[in-house]
């Protein structure tokens, strides 16, 4: 089952392995019996296509990896002149705070996901299923944090937070990040709930399940893939966030993107590349965690 897509919803027959295999076996039969060189050519074309795709995808990342170990690299050399781990030592030096900033970043991102999902699951359900006045306007309101120049907003947020004593605290930063991530979680949650088949809910109600029970056993699990996807985006958004953290968190709360931002804008390629690679670790782990969580939790509810 490892080839299963992470977001596979437990939708009726499609999720059952036996059904899944069918199309492949059936489809392969005619292609094998038909013209053989066509098959070879196809394979070569597919391989080439994949290679080009991989090049476009990993080329920029290879650049990142190269810069992280390049100690000297300049024209006319096409590759670094000398390699070394000097800049890794710089990032991880005792006064560098890289690891503690990373821990702060990750815990803020996790809390942000919790807060964002806690408010957007009910909101998404309401937007998708219940009659709301001015629904279009409400949806557009949630886009706001993405669309408006954030600096102007954060200055004012910081001003309000000073009076509340929220500046320089983790809850303050989490709130700002969560509001910024809400556009993903609310919009995607609304879409996920809208995609759930109402007949299944009705069926559950007909056999006597309470509305609440129906929601938790039918609707929520079916919408879970989308909601979990939104969790990934909220997590990543929080992990990248710079401006809000600066105005609300600094200097008591410092995150890794603050370091990244400085290094990247200033062209300190080695430091920026290494910091980016460090940030990659929690992102990938979170993604893997979500996938596991999905499979265990959602698939087990199939047929309940």
């Amino acid at each position, binding site marked *: 089952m490892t080839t299963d897509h992470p977001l596979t919803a437990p939708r009726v027959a499609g999720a059952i392995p036996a059904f899944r295999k069918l199309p492949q076996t059936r489809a392969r039969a005619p292609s094998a019996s038909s013209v053989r060189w066509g098959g070879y050519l196809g394979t070569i074309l597919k391989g080439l296509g994949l290679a080009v*795709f991989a090049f476009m995808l990993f080329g920029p*990342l290879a650049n990142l990896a190269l810069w992280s170990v390049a100690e000297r690299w300049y024209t006319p050399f096409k590759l670094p002149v000398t390699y070394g781990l000097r800049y890794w030592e710089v990032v991880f030096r005792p006064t560098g705070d890289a690891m503690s900033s990373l821990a702060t970043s990750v815990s803020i991102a996790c809390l942000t996901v919790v807060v964002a999902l806690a*408010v957007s699951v009910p*909101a998404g359900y309401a937007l998708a299923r*219940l009659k709301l006045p001015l629904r279009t306007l409400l949806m557009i309101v949630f886009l706001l944090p*993405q*669309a408006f120049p954030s600096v102007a907003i954060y200055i004012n947020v910081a001003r309000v937070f000073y009076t509340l004593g929220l500046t320089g605290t983790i809850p303050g930063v989490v709130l700002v990040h969560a509001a910024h991530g809400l556009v993903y979680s609310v919009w995607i949650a609304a879409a996920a709930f809208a*995609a759930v088949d109402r007949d299944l809910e009705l069926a559950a109600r007909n056999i006597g399940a309470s509305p609440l029970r129906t929601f938790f056993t039918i609707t929520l699990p079916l919408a879970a*893939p989308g909601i979990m996807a939104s969790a990934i985006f909220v997590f990543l958004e929080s992990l990248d966030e710079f401006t809000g953290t600066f105005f609300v968190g600094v200097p008591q709360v410092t995150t890794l993107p603050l370091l990244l*931002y400085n290094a990247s804008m200033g062209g300190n390629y080695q430091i920026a590349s290494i910091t980016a690679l460090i940030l990659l670790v929690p992102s990938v782990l979170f993604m893997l965690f979500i996938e596991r969580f999905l499979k265990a939790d959602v698939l087990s509810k199939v047929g309940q």
Partner: protein
Amino acid sequence: MTRPSFFGLILIAPALAMIAALFLYPLGFSLVSAFTVPGGGFSLTHFEKAIDLYSTDILFTLFIVILSTLLTAAISIAIAGALTLGETPWLIASLRFLYRWPLFIPFIVAAQCMRTFLAKNGLMNNSLVAMGVLEPLQTTSFLDWRGIVITFVWKQVPFVTLMLAGAMASIDRATIEAGRNLGASRLRVLFEIVLPQVTQTLLVGLVLSFVTMLSVLSVPMMVAGSQPTMMTVDMAFRINSYGDYATANALGVISYAIAGAVAWIYLRHNVKREVGA
């Protein structure tokens, strides 16, 4: 009718409260400064200035974002389609492993990677020259609007594909089977059976991508020179160089109007579809 609506309002209230407290309220200050002059009183001066100085950049921004969204849509449909309907297991497995990586790269790092990758003597051209695909004299720099579009598409395709492939995986395989058994090509199955069932997800992904790209500062700043440039760079420039929040906020209002218009089109489409269904 009133009862469910009231319940819905309760459900949405926490999220709305959050937006109201953390964005609408602070936004109020910004709007005031965009629509008034220092002496007080309503005025459109700042909008005139914004249009006067940055009309080219506003059009440039629209061009970049629309083109990037369209390309993102095309590539995401292709990848998600291949993942759902593909019949070559190794290809599907590699695609599935590959496509997601840019998702984890922050925009600012993506910009930095692309700046060194797409340059005239960057890693891309160097590799192509080394492979014999290009002659050294044929190399060109992509560090202009093309660089911005490439970076955006590179970063947003995984986002949209992740959502799209998830939605496609959850549609009823039986419908696809039926189509295939009737002899429809995979392309036809993709466009006539699969896509119509996932339009909602695709559009949500695209609207969110559109708005995200509209708001990114680091990519236009770091990938391309500043003439012309995107509105985010102009906003930052107004603030950092002149301390001129009013014009920056006026540009912000224009940017939000563009985002709002796109969201509105999507939502109208949605309502129509629901009525039709």
